[in-house]
């Protein structure tokens, strides 16, 4: 397979995690501009584990993901008592705070005569696990998609469970959910923790694929994109954000001929989509229609 195609597909897979993370919060009715923070925390934490502490990839990824999820819960406890726009601003402020912390975060150790580790604004180089262990680009892409399939399975199970119904209920009407005896804040904190975990998986994978992370990568643009994926692809199913990612990265790749104007064309496409499909391509109505058709076919 062509190296460039493998790179593009790997990017689509990796970014799908942060898109799913933002989607989970959209389901519970919260708009987060800060999912890139958890992506970044896991990228650094898992990179430190494998490149500096010599951990294996899977424990390193699990560690990064756990740290991201814990950070999300810690952020959720004070911020989820505020709602709507205030919550969105709070998540944005947190993400910027995380980025600025990484701008000054220096922690390096000497490995084989080279200094390895986060070096403030210069970033964190040499997260070389996949090169040291001779994992090819195709193998790593398959690992990304294997994990993505597992996360998607978890999403589908969640959406058919009582917890998923509670999340949707809170997203539709939190006051009504509270009147039904549901602890809205507790469930939102749980959703934020799970969203941090999902973003964390993507962050760990990203760091090991690129071998290099720096604070600038995790700026607000990544957060806005992650939110846009759900809004473009649709909020009716977990496939929605994935469609959003495929449209974003796929569309940008397909119009390389107009290189300098690609983002303008993309912005226009997003605007048109949101005018005609305000809840995305695969919104709840579209998903229900597809389910009905499938049931009729099987009946």
């Amino acid at each position: 397979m062509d190296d460039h195609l493998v790179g593009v597909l790997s990017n689509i897979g990796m970014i799908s995690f942060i898109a799913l993370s933002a989607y989970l919060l959209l389901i519970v009715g919260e708009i987060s501009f800060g999912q890139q923070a958890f992506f970044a925390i896991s990228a650094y934490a898992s990179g430190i584990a494998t490149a500096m502490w010599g951990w294996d990839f899977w424990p390193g990824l699990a560690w990064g993901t756990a740290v991201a999820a814990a950070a999300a819960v810690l952020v959720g406890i004070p911020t989820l008592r505020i709602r709507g726009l205030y919550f969105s601003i709070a998540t944005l402020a947190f993400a910027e705070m995380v980025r600025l912390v990484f701008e000054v975060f220096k922690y390096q150790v000497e490995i084989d005569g080279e200094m390895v580790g986060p070096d403030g604004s210069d970033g964190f180089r040499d997260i070389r696990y996949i090169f040291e262990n001779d994992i090819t680009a195709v193998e790593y892409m398959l690992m990304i998609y294997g994990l993505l399939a597992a996360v998607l399975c978890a999403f589908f199970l969640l959406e058919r469970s009582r917890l998923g119904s509670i999340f949707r209920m809170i997203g539709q009407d939190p006051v009504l959910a509270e009147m039904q005896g549901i602890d809205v804040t507790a469930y939102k904190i749980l959703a934020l923790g799970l969203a941090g975990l999902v973003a964390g998986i993507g962050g760990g994978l990203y760091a090991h694929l690129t071998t290099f992370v720096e604070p600038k990568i995790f700026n607000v643009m990544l957060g806005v994109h992650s939110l846009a994926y759900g809004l473009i692809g649709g909020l009716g199913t977990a496939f929605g954000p994935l469609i959003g990612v495929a449209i974003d990265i796929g569309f940008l790749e397909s119009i390389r001929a107009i290189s300098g104007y690609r983002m303008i064309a993309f912005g226009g496409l997003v605007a048109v989509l949101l005018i005609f499909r305000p809840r995305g391509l695969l919104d709840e109505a579209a998903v229900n229609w597809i389910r009905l058709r499938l049931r009729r076919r099987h009946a």
Partner: protein
Amino acid sequence: MVSRAFACLVLASTIAWTGVPAAAERAKAQVVCTPADRKLVYECEIMLMGRKSGAPLEGAKLVVGADMPSMPLAHNVKPVTASPGGKPGMYTATIELEMHGEWALRLDVAGPTRDRLIHKIHFGASKGSSTDQGGRTNQMKK
């Protein structure tokens, strides 16, 4: 529900992977990029060598790509395969940027060793020098 959960478990368990350590010497590079005749097009000369031995790395397949760290995934350069240059370890590649600013040049080395080197270079319309705060030798000649 149970069958779906089982299918998910099976899928997750197939993901586990164990790697085989590679022993080849790591690479390092010196990069010099010069503006070409066309706007935003740069000719890059890349000197590849062994990180410890300093010996020129010949016969490598070098693929050069670039990403703009401040705009992740939005602005990147389609990777190009570098051609061997005039002397041992020297490779040249032409890259076309989308805009000026700081770019992270991604050098994927295959052949005698497999490595990925990242070099941050500031490509400016008026600036004649570049920076890589990691201490690598990178230049953008005017």
